[in-house]
């Protein structure tokens, strides 16, 4: 990533979270990965002044307590949080989920490849793009 700020991963499945962590390690992505298990935990983390704001948020859609859409609804109506790019990382290929996510102006919607090598390729592309792109500078 362009900055050294953490990458936030909102994912309820611990195996999937470990796969993301492993792929980032294999790709030598040096940003710290902050893993939260659902939208509610993510909002609490983001609202706490003590935490560094992430450079990007990788978001699963189907999660207990607060799912990805509910998270987007809150984050994208918050003047400070709305500027952090959110990339959906899901198994859902449902057209409805895609349209709804893009209505919240997500900065990407990636269907998780089941094959690990392809998964690493996907994370590599995400890293390449968000290294090329500038990131919002003034997030505290």
């Amino acid at each position, binding site marked *: 990533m362009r900055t050294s700020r953490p990458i936030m991963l909102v994912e309820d499945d611990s195996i999937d979270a470990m796969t993301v962590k492993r792929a980032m390690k294999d790709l030598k992505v040096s940003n710290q990965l902050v893993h939260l298990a659902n939208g509610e935990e993510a909002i609490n983390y983001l609202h706490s002044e003590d935490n560094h704001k992430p450079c990007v948020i990788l978001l699963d859609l189907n999660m207990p307590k607060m799912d990805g859409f509910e998270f987007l609804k809150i984050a*994208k109506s918050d*003047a400070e949080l*709305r*500027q*952090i*790019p959110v*990339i959906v990382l899901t198994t859902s*290929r449902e*057209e409805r989920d*895609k*349209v709804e*996510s*893009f*209505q919240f*102006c*997500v*900065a*990407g*919607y*990636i*269907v998780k490849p089941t094959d690990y090598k392809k998964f690493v390729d*996907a994370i590599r*592309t*995400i890293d*390449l*793009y968000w290294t*090329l*792109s*500038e*990131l*919002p*500078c*003034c997030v505290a």
Partner: protein
Amino acid sequence: MRDCKPILLLEDDTVDAMTVKRALKDLKVINPLVRVGNGEEALVYLRDDNNIKPCVILLDLNMPKMNGIEFLRVAKADEKLKRIPAIVLTTSKDDQDRLQTFRLNVSGFIVKPVDYIKFVEAMRIIDLYWTLSELPNSEQESLNANIQTDNACRR
């Protein structure tokens, strides 16, 4: 890009627009490039139901009549247009521009490399990312527009 819909480019500078066109050609990106000179023209294009909605919007910031930020304010408040990913492609390194555009939910902010080889590399990464990422299929679009898209894919 993941689908064959056009790429909409908002760029007032003819030479810069030609550079984008040339880079896409060199990268063998098959999506047609629709170029408009400012934000106002872009809104006219996007709101005309006879036109296929683009898969992504690449936009410059400094343009006459309606600049990039003014365009984003309108497009990102429009229920039919807000879902189209908008990527800033600019020479501006201004922090204020970056902050304002990310608040308006852009899906990337890329400072144009002056060197052509580096510019092609930037366009390659944009194409790679938006081929990996799914894109929203507009439900409201007419069947007619879908047929046009299919035909565009076959060309």
